């Protein structure tokens, strides 16, 4: 309904430690709470699906999510949410890449080296951790992603962070995660899951090596529930839109890496992702 809301709920996509996620989004929570004047809370479900279900069920109002997760919401209910903003990378671009990587000491340097080895996806709802690689890689290897076909085993680790840890520990031989692909490999690039892992002291990038990179993926959208009152939507959109100028530190924190800010975006940017997702569905 178009009346005042009593609270505002921000969902944070899985893939990182719940506590860290809460920490890095605290600045956004305060900004929204101050602007709306209603209690604003953060929720960090265990996986992507938690946020997807929250947006569909109307129990989460805002989230910065991956394109594939957005597509999942869109496919289930096109009216539920709209993408409003996308983050702008340091160089002004808006997309990101899915990147395949392996341990440097494993001898694997390319997808060919991964033959008969264990391949790790992240979350089934991740764009870079599942959807894009599962579309692009079969074309490169001329085989399916079924266990035993080309790769010895294909497994979901549960999330980006888990994939990085699993590769680093040798639980899987190679995995895919997301990155902007700019800056230094040693730093884990300027943003993405690898950068977060480096910042958190999880991995030393010198131990890892890149084995594959996808085509550019449309940037991760900030989505807002359509059922929210118009003024609430406008206020929240305004806060994040100007975050790059008003509070760059917070923009970096919520985006998970160096960004210059956020730009408006519409559903049109994601039609290819929706199509890819539909193609992967039964």
């Amino acid at each position, binding site marked *: 309904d178009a009346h005042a809301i009593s609270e505002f*709920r921000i*969902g944070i996509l899985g893939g990182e430690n719940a506590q860290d996620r809460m920490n890095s989004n605290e600045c956004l929570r305060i900004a929204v709470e101050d602007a709306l004047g209603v209690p604003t*809370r953060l*929720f960090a479900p265990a*996986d*992507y*699906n938690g946020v*997807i*279900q*929250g947006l*569909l*069920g*109307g*129990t*989460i109002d805002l989230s910065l999510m991956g394109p594939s997760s957005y597509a*999942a919401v869109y*496919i*289930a209910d096109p009216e539920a949410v709209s993408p409003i903003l996308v983050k702008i990378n340091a160089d002004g671009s808006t997309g990101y890449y899915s990147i395949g990587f392996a341990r440097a000491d494993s001898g694997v340097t390319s997808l060919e080296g991964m033959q008969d080895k264990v391949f790790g996806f992240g*979350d*089934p*709802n991740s764009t870079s951790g599942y959807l894009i690689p599962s579309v692009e890689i079969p074309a490169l290897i001329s085989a399916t992603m079924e266990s035993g076909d080309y790769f010895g085993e294909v*497994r*979901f*680790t*549960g999330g980006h962070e888990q994939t990085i840890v699993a590769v680093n*520990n040798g*639980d899987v031989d190679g995995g895919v995660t997301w990155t902007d692909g700019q800056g230094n490999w040693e730093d884990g690039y300027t943003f993405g899951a690898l950068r977060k892992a480096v910042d958190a002291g999880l991995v030393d990038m010198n131990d890892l090596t890149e084995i594959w990179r996808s085509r550019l993926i449309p940037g991760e959208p900030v989505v807002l529930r359509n059922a929210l009152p118009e003024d609430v939507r406008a206020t929240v959109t305004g806060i994040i839109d100007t975050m790059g100028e008003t509070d760059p530190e917070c923009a970096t924190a919520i985006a998970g890496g160096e960004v210059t800010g956020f730009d408006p975006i519409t559903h049109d940017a994601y039609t290819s992702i929706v199509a890819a*997702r*539909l193609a*992967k*569905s*039964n």
Partner: protein
Amino acid sequence: MVDQTENYANVADLSTAYLAQVKAKRLMNFIMLVLFLALLGAGFYTADSRNAGGFWDGIGNVFDFPEAMLGEAIERVQLMPGYLVKYLPSLIETINIAAASTLLGAVLGLFMSLLVTRGFAPVPMLVGPLRRILDVLRAVPEIVIALVLIFMLGGGPVPAMIAIALHTVGALGKLFSEVNENASLKPVEGLASVGASWTQRMWLGVIPQVAPNYLSYALLRFEINIRASAILGFVGAGGIGYDLRNTMSWGVGKYDEAAAIFILLFLTIVVVDQLSSIMRKRLTHGNSSAEVTL
């Protein structure tokens, strides 16, 4: 209380005393009831306010999810048999995890239970410490052990099996020791008097007495462990839980597969549940012909 009442001079005193006692009890019960209801109410309120969605907002949507899932399952019902076959191996893995861990846990639990039952324990000094160990084994949720073991052993069914088996040792060890406490010591003493070793005394003197109860508890545990093994799959340890999570979280487009897995799991749980309850009834209620040959 008898000594008290005998002091009353007459019935009038007794009546007053009883009335006072009843009123005190009534008040106490009333306070307890109010306290309990208040706790329940406050608990509900707190949970509601800490939840993303409120109870009253959400109650209307409870059928959204089953609807979406069922809709898709019905729409592609012709694919169902294929899915059932596709996921059968995962189901078997889940059942194997449960069965192996129940067996392992029951054997170790049996051994532990004999070590912690006064009268049977070969080393009475260890009874206390071993009981604490059983308590801890029971207290640790399987998921904790499983996740830690996955870290060390990698994924797959083994960590889940070990985790569930350890928990089963704790649970069955305690239940078995309670059964042991009701077992007669006479046959054990009889065997001791012929110079039988501890193992012989336990195997020949105790086990035949308690075997039907043991079996009944072990079956109940198997039932519980099937669920546990499915749940552990959900958090990363192989079996059908893993497939269920991946299809279910994909959502629209794979709900039909999720439904198929769900049907497999549900049927398994119900069948095992019914079979075990029939067998347990037969074991514990009479039917003395349930011969135990040991």
